[in-house]
Protein backbone atom coordinates (compact mmCIF):
# COMPACT_ATOMS: atom_id res chain seq x y z
CA UNK A 1 0.00 0.00 0.00
CA UNK A 2 1.38 3.40 -0.87
CA UNK A 3 1.39 6.15 1.75
CA UNK A 4 0.11 9.72 1.65
CA UNK A 5 3.25 10.87 -0.17
CA UNK A 6 2.73 8.34 -2.98
CA UNK A 7 5.62 6.25 -1.64
CA UNK A 8 4.93 2.61 -2.54
CA UNK A 9 5.80 -0.60 -0.71
CA UNK A 10 5.54 -3.05 -3.62
CA UNK A 11 7.04 -2.02 -6.94
CA UNK A 12 7.41 -3.61 -10.37
CA UNK A 13 9.78 -2.01 -12.86
CA UNK A 14 9.97 -2.92 -16.53
CA UNK A 15 13.29 -1.80 -17.94
CA UNK A 16 14.60 -2.05 -14.40
CA UNK A 17 18.29 -1.94 -15.22
CA UNK A 18 18.23 1.43 -16.97
CA UNK A 19 20.14 4.16 -15.18
CA UNK A 20 17.03 6.26 -14.61
CA UNK A 21 15.05 3.26 -13.32
CA UNK A 22 17.91 2.43 -10.93
CA UNK A 23 18.08 5.98 -9.62
CA UNK A 24 14.31 5.93 -9.00
CA UNK A 25 14.47 2.48 -7.39
CA UNK A 26 17.11 3.65 -4.92
CA UNK A 27 14.94 6.56 -3.81
CA UNK A 28 11.83 4.39 -3.55
CA UNK A 29 13.69 1.85 -1.41
CA UNK A 30 15.13 4.55 0.82
CA UNK A 31 11.52 5.66 1.41
CA UNK A 32 9.06 2.78 1.86
CA UNK A 33 9.58 0.19 -0.89
CA UNK A 34 10.35 -3.30 0.44
CA UNK A 35 9.40 -5.51 -2.49
CA UNK A 36 11.01 -4.70 -5.83
CA UNK A 37 10.62 -6.83 -8.96
CA UNK A 38 12.92 -5.79 -11.80
CA UNK A 39 12.19 -6.90 -15.35
CA UNK A 40 14.54 -6.41 -18.27
CA UNK A 41 16.77 -7.94 -20.88
CA UNK A 42 20.14 -8.32 -19.22
CA UNK A 43 20.29 -10.71 -16.27
CA UNK A 44 23.63 -9.44 -15.01
CA UNK A 45 22.52 -5.81 -14.94
CA UNK A 46 19.20 -6.74 -13.35
CA UNK A 47 20.96 -8.68 -10.59
CA UNK A 48 23.19 -5.70 -9.93
CA UNK A 49 20.15 -3.41 -9.76
CA UNK A 50 18.39 -5.85 -7.41
CA UNK A 51 21.41 -5.92 -5.12
CA UNK A 52 21.46 -2.15 -5.14
CA UNK A 53 17.75 -2.08 -4.22
CA UNK A 54 18.55 -4.27 -1.22
CA UNK A 55 21.36 -1.99 -0.15
CA UNK A 56 18.85 0.84 -0.11
CA UNK A 57 16.34 -1.06 2.04
CA UNK A 58 14.39 -3.51 -0.11
CA UNK A 59 13.78 -6.79 1.73
CA UNK A 60 12.47 -8.79 -1.21
CA UNK A 61 13.78 -8.50 -4.76
CA UNK A 62 13.49 -10.66 -7.83
CA UNK A 63 14.06 -10.36 -11.55
CA UNK A 64 12.15 -11.27 -14.71
CA UNK A 65 13.90 -11.59 -18.07
CA UNK A 66 12.10 -10.49 -21.22
CA UNK A 67 12.85 -9.14 -24.68
CA UNK A 68 10.97 -5.97 -25.65
CA UNK A 69 11.43 -6.64 -29.37
CA UNK A 70 8.75 -9.31 -29.02
CA UNK A 71 5.40 -7.87 -27.85
CA UNK A 72 3.86 -11.35 -27.74
CA UNK A 73 5.61 -11.87 -24.38
CA UNK A 74 4.20 -8.68 -22.79
CA UNK A 75 1.18 -10.24 -21.13
CA UNK A 76 3.20 -13.18 -19.81
CA UNK A 77 5.99 -10.91 -18.55
CA UNK A 78 3.54 -8.71 -16.64
CA UNK A 79 1.83 -11.69 -15.12
CA UNK A 80 5.17 -13.21 -14.03
CA UNK A 81 6.27 -9.97 -12.40
CA UNK A 82 2.97 -9.50 -10.54
CA UNK A 83 3.09 -13.10 -9.37
CA UNK A 84 6.54 -12.55 -7.92
CA UNK A 85 5.26 -9.64 -5.85
CA UNK A 86 2.72 -11.99 -4.28
CA UNK A 87 0.75 -9.07 -2.84
CA UNK A 88 -0.93 -5.90 -4.05
CA UNK A 89 1.22 -3.94 -6.48
CA UNK A 90 1.44 -0.26 -5.56
CA UNK A 91 3.56 1.11 -8.39
CA UNK A 92 4.44 -0.11 -11.87
CA UNK A 93 7.15 1.72 -13.77
CA UNK A 94 7.57 1.34 -17.52
CA UNK A 95 11.13 2.38 -18.30
CA UNK A 96 11.48 0.28 -21.42
CA UNK A 97 13.05 2.12 -24.29
CA UNK A 98 15.70 2.30 -26.95
CA UNK A 99 17.37 5.47 -28.17
CA UNK A 100 18.61 4.02 -31.47
CA UNK A 101 20.86 5.82 -33.90
CA UNK A 102 18.84 8.19 -36.06
CA UNK A 103 21.11 8.09 -39.12
CA UNK A 104 20.93 4.30 -39.22
CA UNK A 105 17.32 3.86 -38.12
CA UNK A 106 15.87 6.23 -40.70
CA UNK A 107 17.26 4.28 -43.65
CA UNK A 108 16.41 0.80 -42.36
CA UNK A 109 12.90 -0.64 -42.45
CA UNK A 110 13.83 -3.31 -39.90
CA UNK A 111 15.42 -0.89 -37.47
CA UNK A 112 12.62 1.65 -37.80
CA UNK A 113 10.14 -1.10 -37.05
CA UNK A 114 12.16 -2.30 -34.06
CA UNK A 115 12.30 1.23 -32.62
CA UNK A 116 8.51 1.41 -32.68
CA UNK A 117 8.19 -2.10 -31.26
CA UNK A 118 10.47 -1.46 -28.28
CA UNK A 119 9.36 2.09 -27.54
CA UNK A 120 5.65 1.80 -28.24
CA UNK A 121 4.26 -1.62 -29.04
CA UNK A 122 5.74 -3.61 -26.16
CA UNK A 123 4.99 -0.93 -23.53
CA UNK A 124 1.42 -0.48 -24.79
CA UNK A 125 0.79 -4.23 -24.84
CA UNK A 126 2.15 -4.49 -21.30
CA UNK A 127 0.05 -1.52 -20.20
CA UNK A 128 -3.14 -3.26 -21.32
CA UNK A 129 -2.40 -6.14 -18.95
CA UNK A 130 -1.14 -3.88 -16.15
CA UNK A 131 -4.28 -1.77 -16.45
CA UNK A 132 -6.48 -4.88 -16.14
CA UNK A 133 -4.66 -6.10 -13.08
CA UNK A 134 -4.58 -2.80 -11.22
CA UNK A 135 -8.24 -2.17 -12.00
CA UNK A 136 -9.09 -5.58 -10.58
CA UNK A 137 -7.08 -4.68 -7.51
CA UNK A 138 -8.83 -1.30 -7.25
CA UNK A 139 -5.68 0.68 -6.55
CA UNK A 140 -2.21 1.32 -7.87
CA UNK A 141 -0.11 3.73 -9.81
CA UNK A 142 1.62 3.50 -13.18
CA UNK A 143 4.57 5.66 -14.13
CA UNK A 144 5.48 5.68 -17.82
CA UNK A 145 8.80 7.03 -19.06
CA UNK A 146 7.98 9.29 -21.93
CA UNK A 147 10.33 12.07 -22.96
CA UNK A 148 10.27 15.82 -23.37
CA UNK A 149 11.20 15.00 -26.97
CA UNK A 150 7.75 13.47 -27.39
CA UNK A 151 6.12 16.90 -27.27
CA UNK A 152 7.47 18.06 -30.59
CA UNK A 153 9.26 15.64 -32.88
CA UNK A 154 12.45 17.00 -34.33
CA UNK A 155 14.39 16.03 -37.39
CA UNK A 156 17.58 14.98 -35.66
CA UNK A 157 15.89 12.18 -33.66
CA UNK A 158 12.51 11.69 -35.27
CA UNK A 159 12.38 7.92 -34.99
CA UNK A 160 12.97 7.95 -31.23
CA UNK A 161 11.00 11.07 -30.41
CA UNK A 162 8.20 10.06 -32.77
CA UNK A 163 7.95 6.70 -31.03
CA UNK A 164 7.89 8.39 -27.61
CA UNK A 165 5.22 10.77 -28.96
CA UNK A 166 3.07 7.75 -29.80
CA UNK A 167 3.54 6.25 -26.36
CA UNK A 168 2.96 9.61 -24.66
CA UNK A 169 -0.37 10.33 -26.42
CA UNK A 170 -1.60 6.79 -25.91
CA UNK A 171 -0.84 7.01 -22.21
CA UNK A 172 -2.76 10.27 -22.03
CA UNK A 173 -5.79 8.26 -23.13
CA UNK A 174 -5.13 5.49 -20.63
CA UNK A 175 -4.76 8.08 -17.87
CA UNK A 176 -8.18 9.52 -18.73
CA UNK A 177 -9.75 6.09 -18.82
CA UNK A 178 -8.52 5.52 -15.27
CA UNK A 179 -10.02 8.62 -13.70
CA UNK A 180 -12.11 7.79 -10.68
CA UNK A 181 -11.01 4.15 -10.57
CA UNK A 182 -8.39 4.36 -7.82
CA UNK A 183 -5.68 3.62 -10.39
CA UNK A 184 -3.55 6.46 -11.70
CA UNK A 185 -1.18 6.79 -14.63
CA UNK A 186 1.51 9.47 -14.57
CA UNK A 187 3.81 10.37 -17.44
CA UNK A 188 7.45 11.20 -16.86
CA UNK A 189 8.86 13.63 -19.41
CA UNK A 190 12.55 14.22 -18.77
CA UNK A 191 14.92 16.26 -20.88
CA UNK A 192 18.11 14.52 -22.01
CA UNK A 193 19.54 12.56 -19.10
CA UNK A 194 23.23 11.65 -18.78
CA UNK A 195 23.13 7.84 -18.77
CA UNK A 196 24.74 4.88 -20.49
CA UNK A 197 21.97 5.18 -23.11
CA UNK A 198 22.93 8.74 -24.02
CA UNK A 199 26.72 8.45 -24.04
CA UNK A 200 27.95 10.51 -27.00
CA UNK A 201 24.70 12.47 -27.38
CA UNK A 202 25.07 16.25 -27.48
CA UNK A 203 23.94 17.87 -24.27
CA UNK A 204 21.20 20.34 -25.09
CA UNK A 205 19.96 22.81 -22.45
CA UNK A 206 18.17 21.26 -19.45
CA UNK A 207 20.26 18.09 -19.55
CA UNK A 208 20.35 16.53 -16.07
CA UNK A 209 21.65 13.49 -14.24
CA UNK A 210 19.50 10.45 -13.42
CA UNK A 211 19.47 11.37 -9.74
CA UNK A 212 17.75 14.66 -10.44
CA UNK A 213 15.10 12.85 -12.48
CA UNK A 214 14.52 10.49 -9.56
CA UNK A 215 14.08 13.42 -7.18
CA UNK A 216 11.49 14.94 -9.49
CA UNK A 217 9.73 11.59 -9.68
CA UNK A 218 9.48 11.41 -5.88
CA UNK A 219 7.98 14.90 -5.89
CA UNK A 220 5.63 13.96 -8.71
CA UNK A 221 4.38 10.87 -6.86
CA UNK A 222 3.57 13.04 -3.84
CA UNK A 223 1.86 15.75 -5.87
CA UNK A 224 -0.16 13.40 -8.10
CA UNK A 225 0.38 15.57 -11.16
CA UNK A 226 -0.57 13.90 -14.45
CA UNK A 227 2.78 14.76 -16.01
CA UNK A 228 6.10 14.86 -14.19
CA UNK A 229 8.58 17.09 -16.00
CA UNK A 230 12.28 16.91 -15.25
CA UNK A 231 13.53 19.52 -14.73
CA UNK A 232 10.12 20.98 -13.75
CA UNK A 233 10.77 24.20 -15.67
CA UNK A 234 10.36 22.24 -18.94
CA UNK A 235 6.59 22.35 -18.44
CA UNK A 236 6.68 26.05 -19.31
CA UNK A 237 9.48 25.84 -21.86
CA UNK A 238 7.55 23.28 -23.88
CA UNK A 239 4.33 25.21 -23.53
CA UNK A 240 6.07 27.80 -25.67
CA UNK A 241 8.03 25.42 -27.91
CA UNK A 242 5.02 23.32 -28.89
CA UNK A 243 3.31 26.44 -30.29
CA UNK A 244 6.27 27.79 -32.25
CA UNK A 245 5.64 28.17 -36.00
CA UNK A 246 7.35 25.36 -37.91
CA UNK A 247 10.12 27.46 -39.53
CA UNK A 248 11.05 28.89 -36.17
CA UNK A 249 10.98 25.42 -34.57
CA UNK A 250 13.42 24.18 -37.21
CA UNK A 251 15.70 27.09 -36.50
CA UNK A 252 15.65 26.45 -32.77
CA UNK A 253 16.33 22.74 -33.14
CA UNK A 254 18.98 22.87 -35.85
CA UNK A 255 21.58 24.54 -33.77
Amino acid at each position, binding site marked *: *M*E*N*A*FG*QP*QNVVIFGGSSDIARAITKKLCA*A*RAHTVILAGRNQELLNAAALEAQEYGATKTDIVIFDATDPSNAERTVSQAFKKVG*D*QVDLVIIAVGQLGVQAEDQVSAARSAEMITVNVTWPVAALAEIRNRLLAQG*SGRILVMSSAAAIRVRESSYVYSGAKAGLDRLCGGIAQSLEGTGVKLQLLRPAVVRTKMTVGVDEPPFTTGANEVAENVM*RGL*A*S*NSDVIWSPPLLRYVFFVLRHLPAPLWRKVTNR
Partner: protein
Amino acid sequence: MGAMGLTGVVTSVTLQMLAIETSQMLVDTDRFGDLDSVMSAMSSGDDDYRYSVAWVDCMTRGAHMGRAILTRGNHASAADVKKAALSGPRKPRLTIPFQAPSGLLNRYSVRAFNELWFRTAPRHELDEAQSLSSFFYPLDGVAGWNLLYGKRGFVQYQFCVPDAMGDTVVDVIRRLSESRVASFLAVLKRFGPGNPSPLSFPLSGWTLALDLPVGADALPGVLDDLDEMVVAATGRVYFAKDARLQADQVRAMYPRLDEFRAVKSRVDPDDQLTSDLARRLDLVGK
Protein backbone atom coordinates in the same frame (compact mmCIF):
# COMPACT_ATOMS: atom_id res chain seq x y z
CA MET B 1 -12.83 -0.35 20.56
CA GLY B 2 -9.26 0.18 19.47
CA ALA B 3 -9.01 -2.62 16.92
CA MET B 4 -8.99 -0.33 13.89
CA GLY B 5 -12.08 -2.04 12.49
CA LEU B 6 -10.14 -5.25 11.88
CA THR B 7 -11.86 -7.61 14.31
CA GLY B 8 -15.50 -7.25 13.39
CA VAL B 9 -18.51 -5.03 12.90
CA VAL B 10 -20.03 -2.99 15.73
CA THR B 11 -23.69 -4.00 15.93
CA SER B 12 -24.69 -2.34 19.16
CA VAL B 13 -23.35 0.60 21.11
CA THR B 14 -24.10 1.86 24.59
CA LEU B 15 -23.00 5.42 25.13
CA GLN B 16 -22.65 7.20 28.40
CA MET B 17 -23.61 10.83 27.96
CA LEU B 18 -22.93 13.91 29.97
CA ALA B 19 -25.99 16.02 30.85
CA ILE B 20 -25.48 19.72 30.16
CA GLU B 21 -27.80 22.62 30.90
CA THR B 22 -26.81 25.03 28.13
CA SER B 23 -25.02 25.02 24.79
CA GLN B 24 -22.46 27.47 26.14
CA MET B 25 -18.97 26.98 27.47
CA LEU B 26 -17.24 29.15 30.04
CA VAL B 27 -13.78 29.62 28.64
CA ASP B 28 -10.54 30.98 30.07
CA THR B 29 -7.92 32.00 27.52
CA ASP B 30 -4.23 32.67 28.11
CA ARG B 31 -1.43 33.55 25.74
CA PHE B 32 2.09 32.20 26.39
CA GLY B 33 5.26 33.42 24.71
CA ASP B 34 7.02 30.07 24.73
CA LEU B 35 6.40 26.35 25.02
CA ASP B 36 7.80 25.74 28.50
CA SER B 37 5.46 28.22 30.14
CA VAL B 38 2.34 26.84 28.49
CA MET B 39 3.32 23.26 29.37
CA SER B 40 3.89 24.09 32.99
CA ALA B 41 0.58 25.99 33.12
CA MET B 42 -1.16 22.90 31.72
CA SER B 43 0.60 20.52 34.12
CA SER B 44 -0.40 22.56 37.14
CA GLY B 45 -3.79 24.00 36.23
CA ASP B 46 -5.64 21.62 33.91
CA ASP B 47 -7.38 19.76 36.73
CA ASP B 48 -9.65 22.76 37.31
CA TYR B 49 -11.20 22.37 33.88
CA ARG B 50 -13.08 19.63 32.07
CA TYR B 51 -11.49 20.61 28.75
CA SER B 52 -8.11 22.09 27.97
CA VAL B 53 -6.36 22.66 24.68
CA ALA B 54 -3.32 24.66 23.64
CA TRP B 55 -2.83 25.92 20.07
CA VAL B 56 0.91 25.90 19.51
CA ASP B 57 2.76 27.81 16.78
CA CYS B 58 5.28 25.35 15.32
CA MET B 59 6.90 27.80 12.91
CA THR B 60 8.40 30.45 15.16
CA ARG B 61 12.03 29.80 16.05
CA GLY B 62 14.23 31.18 18.81
CA ALA B 63 13.06 32.49 22.17
CA HIS B 64 9.37 32.35 21.21
CA MET B 65 9.53 28.81 19.88
CA GLY B 66 6.27 27.04 20.63
CA ARG B 67 4.35 30.13 21.72
CA ALA B 68 0.81 29.11 22.43
CA ILE B 69 -2.74 30.05 23.23
CA LEU B 70 -4.27 27.99 25.99
CA THR B 71 -8.05 27.75 26.11
CA ARG B 72 -9.70 25.89 28.95
CA GLY B 73 -13.35 25.58 29.71
CA ASN B 74 -16.23 24.01 31.52
CA HIS B 75 -19.85 23.59 30.53
CA ALA B 76 -21.85 26.62 31.58
CA SER B 77 -24.82 26.00 33.82
CA ALA B 78 -28.04 27.94 33.31
CA ALA B 79 -27.13 30.03 36.33
CA ASP B 80 -23.73 30.87 34.80
CA VAL B 81 -25.11 32.36 31.63
CA LYS B 82 -28.00 34.76 31.36
CA LYS B 83 -30.56 33.91 28.70
CA ALA B 84 -28.68 30.69 28.09
CA ALA B 85 -30.48 27.90 26.29
CA LEU B 86 -29.65 24.83 24.28
CA SER B 87 -29.26 25.76 20.64
CA GLY B 88 -27.90 23.95 17.61
CA PRO B 89 -24.52 24.73 16.09
CA ARG B 90 -24.30 27.99 14.19
CA LYS B 91 -23.79 28.09 10.44
CA PRO B 92 -20.21 28.83 9.36
CA ARG B 93 -19.56 32.47 8.68
CA LEU B 94 -17.13 31.92 5.84
CA THR B 95 -17.14 29.39 3.00
CA ILE B 96 -14.26 28.34 0.75
CA PRO B 97 -15.99 28.34 -2.65
CA PHE B 98 -13.57 26.13 -4.63
CA GLN B 99 -10.41 24.09 -4.31
CA ALA B 100 -7.46 26.42 -3.91
CA PRO B 101 -4.33 25.93 -6.03
CA SER B 102 -1.83 23.57 -4.41
CA GLY B 103 0.90 25.56 -2.76
CA LEU B 104 -1.37 28.34 -1.49
CA LEU B 105 -0.63 27.09 1.98
CA ASN B 106 3.13 27.37 2.07
CA ARG B 107 5.46 28.32 4.87
CA TYR B 108 4.95 32.04 4.29
CA SER B 109 1.16 32.07 4.23
CA VAL B 110 0.93 29.62 7.13
CA ARG B 111 3.39 31.67 9.15
CA ALA B 112 1.25 34.77 8.50
CA PHE B 113 -1.87 32.89 9.56
CA ASN B 114 -0.23 31.67 12.76
CA GLU B 115 0.92 35.21 13.52
CA LEU B 116 -2.58 36.56 13.05
CA TRP B 117 -4.11 33.80 15.17
CA PHE B 118 -1.65 34.48 17.96
CA ARG B 119 -1.90 38.28 17.88
CA THR B 120 -5.69 38.35 17.86
CA ALA B 121 -6.05 36.06 20.87
CA PRO B 122 -6.58 37.77 24.23
CA ARG B 123 -3.60 37.81 26.59
CA HIS B 124 -5.73 36.73 29.49
CA GLU B 125 -9.49 36.43 29.58
CA LEU B 126 -11.74 34.71 32.12
CA ASP B 127 -15.22 33.19 31.89
CA GLU B 128 -15.93 34.10 28.31
CA ALA B 129 -19.11 32.42 27.08
CA GLN B 130 -18.51 30.51 23.84
CA SER B 131 -20.76 28.19 21.85
CA LEU B 132 -19.98 24.48 21.92
CA SER B 133 -19.05 24.48 18.25
CA SER B 134 -16.71 27.45 18.38
CA PHE B 135 -14.95 26.01 21.43
CA PHE B 136 -14.60 22.44 20.17
CA TYR B 137 -14.43 22.97 16.41
CA PRO B 138 -12.92 26.40 15.78
CA LEU B 139 -11.88 25.40 12.24
CA ASP B 140 -15.47 24.69 11.27
CA GLY B 141 -16.10 28.44 11.42
CA VAL B 142 -14.76 28.26 7.85
CA ALA B 143 -16.86 25.86 5.78
CA GLY B 144 -14.84 23.71 3.40
CA TRP B 145 -11.53 24.66 5.05
CA ASN B 146 -10.03 21.45 3.69
CA LEU B 147 -10.26 22.91 0.16
CA LEU B 148 -7.64 25.48 1.12
CA TYR B 149 -5.04 22.72 0.92
CA GLY B 150 -5.61 22.27 -2.81
CA LYS B 151 -5.39 19.04 -4.78
CA ARG B 152 -2.36 17.72 -2.90
CA GLY B 153 -4.21 17.89 0.41
CA PHE B 154 -2.62 17.53 3.80
CA VAL B 155 -1.45 14.91 6.25
CA GLN B 156 -2.16 14.78 9.94
CA TYR B 157 0.34 13.66 12.52
CA GLN B 158 -0.57 13.01 16.13
CA PHE B 159 1.57 11.37 18.76
CA CYS B 160 1.57 10.94 22.51
CA VAL B 161 4.41 10.55 25.01
CA PRO B 162 4.34 9.77 28.73
CA ASP B 163 4.39 12.61 31.25
CA ALA B 164 8.07 12.14 32.05
CA MET B 165 8.92 12.60 28.37
CA GLY B 166 7.45 16.08 28.00
CA ASP B 167 10.81 17.22 26.62
CA THR B 168 10.07 15.25 23.47
CA VAL B 169 7.22 17.66 22.72
CA VAL B 170 9.76 20.48 22.90
CA ASP B 171 12.22 18.57 20.68
CA VAL B 172 9.52 17.80 18.11
CA ILE B 173 8.44 21.42 17.88
CA ARG B 174 12.07 22.49 17.57
CA ARG B 175 12.61 19.99 14.74
CA LEU B 176 9.50 21.26 12.95
CA SER B 177 10.32 24.93 13.35
CA GLU B 178 13.91 24.39 12.16
CA SER B 179 12.85 22.31 9.16
CA ARG B 180 10.61 25.16 8.01
CA VAL B 181 7.89 22.84 6.73
CA ALA B 182 4.57 24.63 6.91
CA SER B 183 2.57 23.50 9.89
CA PHE B 184 -0.63 25.03 11.11
CA LEU B 185 -1.15 25.68 14.75
CA ALA B 186 -0.64 22.37 16.44
CA VAL B 187 -2.99 21.17 19.12
CA LEU B 188 -1.39 20.20 22.43
CA LYS B 189 -3.40 18.37 25.08
CA ARG B 190 -2.93 16.35 28.23
CA PHE B 191 -3.93 12.71 28.05
CA GLY B 192 -5.37 10.35 30.64
CA PRO B 193 -4.77 6.60 30.57
CA GLY B 194 -5.80 4.51 27.55
CA ASN B 195 -8.39 1.72 27.47
CA PRO B 196 -7.39 -1.94 27.91
CA SER B 197 -7.31 -2.67 24.16
CA PRO B 198 -3.86 -3.79 22.93
CA LEU B 199 -3.84 -1.07 20.25
CA SER B 200 -5.23 1.72 22.42
CA PHE B 201 -3.56 5.00 21.52
CA PRO B 202 -3.66 7.24 24.62
CA LEU B 203 -1.31 7.05 27.56
CA SER B 204 -1.05 9.37 30.54
CA GLY B 205 0.98 12.29 29.28
CA TRP B 206 1.06 14.69 26.35
CA THR B 207 -0.40 14.55 22.89
CA LEU B 208 0.41 16.85 19.99
CA ALA B 209 -1.61 16.92 16.75
CA LEU B 210 -0.40 18.57 13.55
CA ASP B 211 -1.95 19.43 10.18
CA LEU B 212 0.69 19.64 7.45
CA PRO B 213 0.15 20.57 3.80
CA VAL B 214 1.65 18.00 1.41
CA GLY B 215 4.19 19.50 -0.97
CA ALA B 216 7.32 20.41 0.95
CA ASP B 217 10.13 18.07 -0.16
CA ALA B 218 11.42 17.81 3.39
CA LEU B 219 8.13 16.73 4.93
CA PRO B 220 8.32 12.92 4.53
CA GLY B 221 11.83 12.86 6.02
CA VAL B 222 10.94 15.22 8.86
CA LEU B 223 8.00 13.03 9.87
CA ASP B 224 10.25 9.95 9.80
CA ASP B 225 12.56 11.78 12.19
CA LEU B 226 9.63 12.59 14.47
CA ASP B 227 8.71 8.88 14.52
CA GLU B 228 12.15 8.07 15.85
CA MET B 229 11.91 10.73 18.53
CA VAL B 230 8.50 9.43 19.57
CA VAL B 231 9.73 5.83 19.74
CA ALA B 232 12.76 6.90 21.77
CA ALA B 233 10.38 8.53 24.24
CA THR B 234 8.28 5.32 24.47
CA GLY B 235 5.41 7.17 22.85
CA ARG B 236 3.31 6.33 19.84
CA VAL B 237 1.69 7.75 16.73
CA TYR B 238 -2.09 7.73 16.28
CA PHE B 239 -3.26 5.15 13.71
CA ALA B 240 -6.56 6.91 13.07
CA LYS B 241 -4.76 9.91 11.62
CA ASP B 242 -1.77 8.13 10.14
CA ALA B 243 -1.04 8.07 6.43
CA ARG B 244 2.72 7.46 6.31
CA LEU B 245 4.07 5.54 9.30
CA GLN B 246 6.58 2.70 8.73
CA ALA B 247 5.68 -0.85 9.65
CA ASP B 248 9.03 -1.27 11.46
CA GLN B 249 8.19 1.47 13.95
CA VAL B 250 4.75 0.12 14.79
CA ARG B 251 6.02 -2.76 16.91
CA ALA B 252 8.02 -0.37 19.08
CA MET B 253 5.11 2.04 19.41
CA TYR B 254 2.52 -0.64 20.11
CA PRO B 255 4.35 -3.34 22.09
CA ARG B 256 1.12 -5.32 22.50
CA LEU B 257 0.75 -5.82 18.74
CA ASP B 258 1.11 -9.60 19.04
CA GLU B 259 -1.75 -9.69 21.55
CA PHE B 260 -3.88 -7.89 18.99
CA ARG B 261 -2.80 -10.32 16.26
CA ALA B 262 -3.77 -13.26 18.47
CA VAL B 263 -7.26 -11.80 18.91
CA LYS B 264 -7.44 -11.08 15.21
CA SER B 265 -6.53 -14.63 14.21
CA ARG B 266 -9.03 -16.03 16.71
CA VAL B 267 -12.04 -13.96 15.60
CA ASP B 268 -11.11 -13.64 11.91
CA PRO B 269 -8.89 -16.62 11.07
CA ASP B 270 -9.17 -16.11 7.30
CA ASP B 271 -8.36 -12.38 7.45
CA GLN B 272 -11.69 -11.46 5.89
CA LEU B 273 -11.43 -7.97 7.31
CA THR B 274 -8.50 -5.91 6.20
CA SER B 275 -7.76 -2.29 5.34
CA ASP B 276 -5.22 -0.10 3.60
CA LEU B 277 -3.86 0.81 7.04
CA ALA B 278 -3.46 -2.86 7.97
CA ARG B 279 -1.68 -3.60 4.71
CA ARG B 280 0.58 -0.58 4.93
CA LEU B 281 1.55 -1.15 8.57
CA ASP B 282 1.54 -4.93 8.45
CA LEU B 283 -0.98 -5.03 11.34
CA VAL B 284 -2.36 -8.46 10.59
CA GLY B 285 0.93 -10.08 9.59
CA LYS B 286 1.58 -11.80 6.30
